């Protein structure tokens, strides 16, 4: 891998870092498999693109994207807790609805940011660095700042209730916590991060596209799993950092895979969803196989 490709992968890893942290919050902490993210990533991109082209500051547009993502996540949470729709189905409904909403927001399937100034440009000018260095640095700073805030939050009184809601709902209800509210807030927070990530990605690649969200959840899961396997998840603080770094490792792995050639066969970007899905399946099945294998050996 060239140095250039490596920096590109790191940049992608941090651009999608907030998305991966969002997926970690729902999938691992709240135990709420949330497919809304496939819709809220392009939602964030659309909101940011429309906001920038209509004259808002690119930085403000990221917060607007986050707000929109929060609302989308809240709706999934409400469908699940108040209307008793299974979490997976609730999130699929939101995801499908968001496809139409994103088209409405942009008024067309995609929107270019050509000639518009983005946070990426501003940061490069401000630091005076080469773009291949300044962009990953900017995204990394944003991601680590968010991780720091989350680590602080998860150690507050509210944060403990948040952790317990995903771990043992009966216990935390018996301690007087309204878990419906925690879930609605938590899924909202997760999607706010995913949408903010969508805004960063759009500003980085100079365009928003309704289809850019396809496979987000799978990429998010793969990153979370790679992160916890490589860096461990003994404490929430560690697991959060691991998820973020997992995002970077995942993008590096993809860059490596794309560069591979087996004779005349080479992997194309369109194969990535399949590869990622297989990777997630392997990661989910591995612990079980390992346990069986160990149990089998113990008997002998």
């Amino acid at each position, binding site marked *: 891998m060239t140095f250039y490709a490596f920096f590109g992968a790191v940049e992608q890893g941090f651009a999608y870092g907030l998305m991966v942290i969002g997926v970690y919050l729902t999938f691992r902490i709240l135990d709420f498999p949330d497919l809304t993210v496939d819709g809220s990533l392009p939602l964030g991109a659309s909101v940011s693109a429309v906001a920038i082209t209509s004259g808002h500051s690119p930085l403000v547009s990221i917060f607007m994207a986050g707000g929109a993502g929060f609302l989308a996540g809240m709706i999934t949470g409400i469908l699940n807790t108040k209307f008793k729709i299974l979490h997976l189905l609730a999130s699929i409904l939101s995801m499908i609805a968001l496809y139409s909403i994103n088209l409405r927001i942009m008024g067309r399937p995609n929107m270019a940011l050509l000639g518009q100034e983005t946070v990426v440009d501003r940061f490069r000018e401000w630091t005076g660095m080469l773009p291949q260095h300044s962009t990953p640095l900017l995204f990394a700073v944003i991601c680590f700042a968010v991780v720091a805030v989350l680590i602080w939050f998860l150690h507050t*009184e509210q944060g403990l209730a948040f952790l317990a809601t995903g771990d*043992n709902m009966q216990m935390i209800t018996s301690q007087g916590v309204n878990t419906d509210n925690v879930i609605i807030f938590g899924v909202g927070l997760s999607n706010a991060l995913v949408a903010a990530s969508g805004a960063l990605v759009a500003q980085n690649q100079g365009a928003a596209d309704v289809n850019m969200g396809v496979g987000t959840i799978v990429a998010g899961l793969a990153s979370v799993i790679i992160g916890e396997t490589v860096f461990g998840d003994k404490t929430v603080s560690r697991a959060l950092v691991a998820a973020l770094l997992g995002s970077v490792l995942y993008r590096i792995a993809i860059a490596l895979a794309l560069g591979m050639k087996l004779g005349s066969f080479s992997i194309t970007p369109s194969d990535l969803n399949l590869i990622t899905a297989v990777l997630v399946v392997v990661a989910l099945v591995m612990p079980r196989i390992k346990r069986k294998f160990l149990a089998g050996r113990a008997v002998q």
Partner: protein
Amino acid sequence: MISVTGMIKAFNKGDVNEVTALSGVDLEVADGDFITIIGSNGAGKSTFLNALAGMFPIDAGRVVLDGTDITRWPEYKRAALIGRVFQDPLLGTCAGATIEQNLAMANKRGLKRGLGKGVRTRDREFFREKLAVLGLGLEDRLKTHTGLLSGGQRQALTMLMATLVRPKLLLLDEHTAALDPKTGAMVLDLTDEIVGTEKLTTLMVTHNMKEAIAMGNRLIMFHRGRIVLDIKSEEKKNLRVEDLLQRFADLRGGDGVVSDRMLLG
């Protein structure tokens, strides 16, 4: 003071599987009453405790606690007034959280949770003192994840958590049934001690008749969703297991054999 009147609860209403778990329960509990509850399988004991805790809406009846009608309060809101220990030791504590984090969460039962530190340094000393009473050495393991504790240790911790903020009502549903006899006896001693010293109003379900007679100041028996026996203070002191079985058999009009599980208990 807790007063339950005309409590009715049916599950799977309008379905072929409809069961009336509670068919009109009335109960007045005085402050400081420690009531043991017995009854055969499916008699409605757990349903009664769960209904008091607000886990589901009841079909009819009223629950009044200290003059406040809490019939329509959701479970999390009633938790401010009610402490609980479940039969399943896994239900009472959060496995992924440490002992001190669990206690910190319990220390906020019914109180507003903010963005202050989850576990405060000054709380740790208080937690250590409380844990020392259990005599399990947990006071030196504040940072241990509760998922690593044994069932008995978790149940003792749950008992502590349920009473850390003084509850107006303590609900114990066969909370020693899943433990081995020795650990069960330890948790039961702990129950007696905490309930006794704090003078907590308590309802305890058990299948052990000796336990039901030995503990508390009042004994009630559920049968087919109703309270069929209510034995108080003096009378309860002189009660023997045989008396109880006889009275149960009489109640059923001598039509049936008393269930094995009750006899064995």
